[in-house]
């Protein structure tokens, strides 16, 4: 039977299930004679817990790194926290009850206090307290804690939830993945799983009702699918999928830390398109040479209200500091059209795609726009920030946007808030007016990024969401290629770089044409980067130049496609 959860860490695993039952500790309350004895018992239990945590800490430092091990330093401090002990002692002295009951109460109070905090970061600390509390109580009650280190055969671990301490102890040689009932992509365990490159699926409600230790399990950490007692056919299919993928990965992995270079030594940049900081682990694993497009709409869409300057600053900073030496292009708000915000009512328009959206909206709602610009400027100190304006149609709009950016910089300067003075500013080239007048625009920006999704829409006057006219989405059409060539030539004449962040950038068939036309940067979904890098290593710039020239003279999309396919086969 198939179960669907959240794919938290990629990879396929097929092994016997090892179910870790949730530890339910019953904490009795009893009257005692000797409060001092209870106090000693507690301290001994704390000492035991601290020793266990020290072992786990060192194990984690060896298996992973210092950063992950430091979680356990905090756990050690929580276990031996003098305030916790002082409060417990006070209860023991006045109420004369057993150490378990007194400690449980104090720990619960702290846990509740943290759970009630607004800040998501501090709220999460409640589960750290819960983990420590369980450890100390188990020591007091003499209940052995789950010791995953005793697993001695190939398994997939199944549990209600996996605390960081348990995850850290999973023996890599035998544990090939884990599945949990609760949790999401950003829980401690999921994060550790990705660092350990251990397949993980989380958030499968009811899984514990369907799996017993000993069942054969198949899990896919990409799709979040878990199959209990799969058929031989299913196993064979997944094994093949796994083998194919492993073989390709091995080849692509060799390209991870390489720059992108053609067979005749021409260098281009392969960057990643992202929607949120959560996308970064894959970006880094795929050896992206930068972020070519950070779509900021998700900050606005996954929210009940406008994201504050602080929230935005945090998100941008997180991305910038993970790639401090590489360029990070962040696009300002691009809503309207198909992307609506429930809390920001915009007048209904007859034609939203051609309407009051993106930069037009921002130049009108400068309150909104300046909040974002401020957050960007402030975050800019953490890396190589490139601010990009979408939907620019005229020079006046560009100049207005740049003036607002300068206004924000001046305000931050006056407020004494640190911000990036050398921020780079560029534009999406997606409206034909800009593509045609690229020579003028190139003089007023630091870079261009061609947004083919919308450029194709506007050039062929056909909505990409409309099935009836989707045949007019013609990414190899010579009209489009000529526009692209104009943009690239204008950019280079004015010594600025030009990239592409639309879907065409990740298209293997378009790659040789774009390369031949002189595109400097290709920004795509991170998952495609390594295979594209391998593809570029087989191409010759000079041959692609000649081939692209020929394409410009064609008359239809199909003629160009045929020409490129022929070119690729002939090599």
């Amino acid at each position, binding site marked *: 039977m198939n179960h669907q959860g959240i794919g938290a860490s990629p990879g396929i695993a097929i092994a016997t299930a090892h179910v870790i039952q949730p530890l339910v500790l019953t904490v009795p309350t009893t009257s005692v004679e000797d409060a001092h004895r209870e106090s000693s018992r507690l301290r001994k239990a704390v000492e035991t817990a601290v020793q266990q945590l020290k072992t786990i800490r060192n194990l984690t430092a060896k298996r992973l790194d210092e950063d992950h091990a430091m979680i356990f330093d905090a756990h050690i401090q929580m276990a031996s*926290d003098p*305030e916790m002990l002082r409060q417990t002692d006070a209860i023991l002295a006045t109420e004369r009850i057993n150490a378990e009951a007194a400690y449980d109460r104090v720990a619960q109070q702290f846990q509740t206090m943290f759970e009630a905090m607004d800040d998501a*970061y501090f709220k999460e600390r409640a589960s750290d307290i819960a983990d420590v509390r369980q450890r100390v109580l188990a020591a007091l009650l003499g209940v052995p804690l789950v010791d995953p280190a005793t697993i001695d055969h190939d398994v997939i671990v199944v549990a209600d939830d996996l605390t960081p301490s348990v995850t850290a102890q999973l023996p890599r040689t035998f544990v090939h993945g884990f599945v949990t009932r609760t949790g999401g992509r950003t829980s401690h365990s999921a994060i550790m799983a990705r660092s350990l490159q251990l397949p993980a699926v989380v958030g499968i409600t009811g899984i514990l009702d369907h799996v017993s230790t000993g069942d054969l399990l198949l899990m896919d950490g990409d799709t979040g699918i878990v199959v209990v007692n799969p058929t031989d056919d299913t196993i064979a299919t997944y094994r093949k999928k796994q083998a194919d993928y492993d073989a390709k990965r091995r080849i692509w992995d060799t390209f991870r830390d390489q720059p992108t270079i053609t067979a005749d030594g021409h260098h281009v940049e392969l960057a990643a398109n992202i929607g949120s900081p959560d996308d970064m682990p894959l970006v880094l694993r795929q050896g992206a040479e930068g972020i070519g497009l950070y779509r900021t709409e998700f900050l606005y869409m996954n929210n009940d209200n406008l994201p504050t300057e602080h929230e935005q600053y945090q998100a941008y900073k997180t991305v910038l500091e993970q790639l401090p030496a590489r360029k990070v292009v962040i696009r300002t708000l691009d809503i309207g059209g198909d992307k609506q915000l429930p809390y920001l009512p915009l007048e209904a328009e007859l034609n939203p795609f051609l309407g009051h959206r993106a930069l037009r909206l921002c130049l009108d709602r400068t309150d909104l726009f300046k909040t974002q610009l401020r957050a960007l400027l402030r975050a800019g100190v953490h890396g190589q920030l490139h601010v990009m304006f979408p939907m620019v149609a005229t020079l006046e709009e560009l100049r207005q946007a740049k003036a607002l950016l300068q206004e924000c910089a001046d305000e931050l300067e006056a407020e004494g808030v640190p911000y990036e003075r050398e921020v780079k500013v560029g534009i999406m080239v997606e409206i034909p007016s800009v593509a045609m007048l690229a020579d003028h625009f190139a003089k007023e920006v630091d870079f261009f990024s061609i947004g083919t999704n919308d450029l194709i829409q506007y050039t062929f006057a056909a909505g990409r969401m409309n099935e009836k006219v989707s045949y007019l989405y013609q990414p190899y059409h010579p009209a489009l290629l000529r526009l692209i060539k104009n943009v690239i030539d204008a950019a280079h004449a004015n010594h600025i770089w030009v990239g592409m962040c639309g879907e065409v950038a990740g298209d293997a068939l378009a790659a040789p044409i774009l390369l031949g036309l002189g595109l400097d940067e290709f920004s795509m979904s991170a998952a495609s980067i390594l295979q594209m890098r391998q593809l570029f290593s087989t191409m010759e710039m000079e041959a692609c130049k000649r081939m692209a020239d020929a394409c410009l003279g064609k008359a239809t999309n199909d003629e160009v496609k045929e020409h490129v396919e022929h070119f690729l086969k002939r090599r």
Partner: protein
Amino acid sequence: MTRTVTITDPSGLHARPVSLLVQIANRSASECLLHFDGKQATMKSILFVMSLGIPSGSTITLEVNGDDAASVLADMVAVLREHRVIESL
């Protein structure tokens, strides 16, 4: 001895620097207090300090009473500066 600092880290006083401050406090025999917004917490307790939930822009006062007050305070300020929780002076 006291030292007053302003938290400039947009995340406020978060767990990593708190953990390091608590380590320093626990290595010393001196009394170590953190004053914030009329409240005070012993810096030997990570739970107490974290529960203050000190946000960005706050002014806090570190108080250390004992023989090694000067070096303890210096260590604490160094940690806060290193983790960019406060600005370098």
